[in-house]
């Protein structure tokens, strides 16, 4: 494998980068950690990881000039996977720590869980697959994934929700729109189910699974 077929993992200072890299590599993919927009543009697929607070995430994405390229590769139809904060950041606005404008690639608000629940929602919970999607290939409906978050997405368009999870209310835990997929849980910490999800993303990138991905012949490598 060469770096030409490496999936770009966007580095904006998020703490769990290495976990994502380990899982992606373990799932048999080639990855490059980068904050270079030109590398992201050339990669056949992109992962936006994340833990921490919405405001910091947005600040870091802005200060590293990454907001434009994220929007660009998603509208170009490049396979894109957002994880946890990397999912929330795609929406219009987050109510975490006040009100922070996010990337607004997907319509919706990121809200705090209602009082009365233990917060953060921390641990293993089930994902109900409400729509079929290649990202779920080989993953049983109701599989447990590892969650750590205090805020959840409230999507304007319910059709983008392909997986949901119940903690108090039911909230979107996997969303998909075009070539974009995002998970509220951490696949890199979700044992075999999570590794399978990354492997599926790799297969989507290589054009081996499903649709909704626009292949760019000059950048897609064969692993």
């Amino acid at each position: 494998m060469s770096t030409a077929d490496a999936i770009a993992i966007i580095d904006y200072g998020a703490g769990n980068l290495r976990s994502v890299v380990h899982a992606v590599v373990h799932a048999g993919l080639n990855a490059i950690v980068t904050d270079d927009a030109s590398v992201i543009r050339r990669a056949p697929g992109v992962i936006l990881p994340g833990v921490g607070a919405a405001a910091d995430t947005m600040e870091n994405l802005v200060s590293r000039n990454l907001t434009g390229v994220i929007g660009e590769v998603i509208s170009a139809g490049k396979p894109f996977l957002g994880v946890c904060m990397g999912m929330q950041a795609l929406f219009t606005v987050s109510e975490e720590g006040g009100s922070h404008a996010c990337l607004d690639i997907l319509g919706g608000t990121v809200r705090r869980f209602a009082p009365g629940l233990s917060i953060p929602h921390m641990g293993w919970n089930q994902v109900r697959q409400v729509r079929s999607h290649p990202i779920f290939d080989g993953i049983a409906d109701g599989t447990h994934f590892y969650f750590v978050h205090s805020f959840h997405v409230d999507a304007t368009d319910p059709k983008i929700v392909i997986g949901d999870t119940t903690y108090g209310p039911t909230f979107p835990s996997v969303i998909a729109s075009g070539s974009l997929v995002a998970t509220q849980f951490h696949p890199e910490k979700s044992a075999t189910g999570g590794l399978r999800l990354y492997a599926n993303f790799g297969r989507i990138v290589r054009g081996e699974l499903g649709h909704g991905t626009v292949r760019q012949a000059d950048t897609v490598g064969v692993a």
Partner: protein
Amino acid sequence: MMLTKRVIPCLDVAAGRVVRGVKFSADKDAGDPIELARRYNTEGADELVFYDITASHEGRGLFMGLLEDCARELFIPLCVGGGLATVDDLYGVLRAGADKTSINSAAVRTPDLIDQGARRFGSQCIVLSIDAKKTVEDDGRNWWQVYVNGGRKATGIDAVAWAREGVDRGAGELVLNSIDADGTREGYDLDLLSTVTGLVEVPVVASGGAGTLDHFTDAFSIGHAHAVLAASVFHYGVFSVPEVKRHLATHGLPVRL
């Protein structure tokens, strides 16, 4: 669909080996950390805790190497503690592959470490670990006192109040270690657990004292813990992680099997 109750093996690591503690003194070798970590990962542990109980510089280097090796092949959450005293220490173990950091004595000495850590890495990364010992006053009043330095030094601080303060400062999870129960296998301190779980909204992990399968059930049903942590009963094969989970399941508790 429900959030499951977590079962967490804890590896106390000294000089590159897992050791067993009884009332906070390391006394017995319990195996190779990587071998044990792999076993727990395969068995379906929900999370692992690595606790560095060596103070020496060499021990520290060995521990960090170990952490990196484990992080490379374990795809469940790793919480790391032991001697973390500054935000840079927290950053160091997070970069080495930890998902959460467990802070204890340093937070008692410098409570602002909790605020700083939570601000920089998010509350979900900051686990406040509290070593508590029941203290009986001359007038018969009972309270739980915070101990530091591996349970050796009394602080005069009320553990329940400290738990509350820790959460207010930004801790995203609490671990309650009962010094009285640690290593005795006589059960978790359920009074301490239910007192704290009734007071804070963050997840609370029961630690110290598991000896029978019912002790785990009690920590959830009576103590209202969100997770149970145990060391020696797992390392020595008294129970396996799946055995504990199956037992919880038969008592109607949601688990990931």
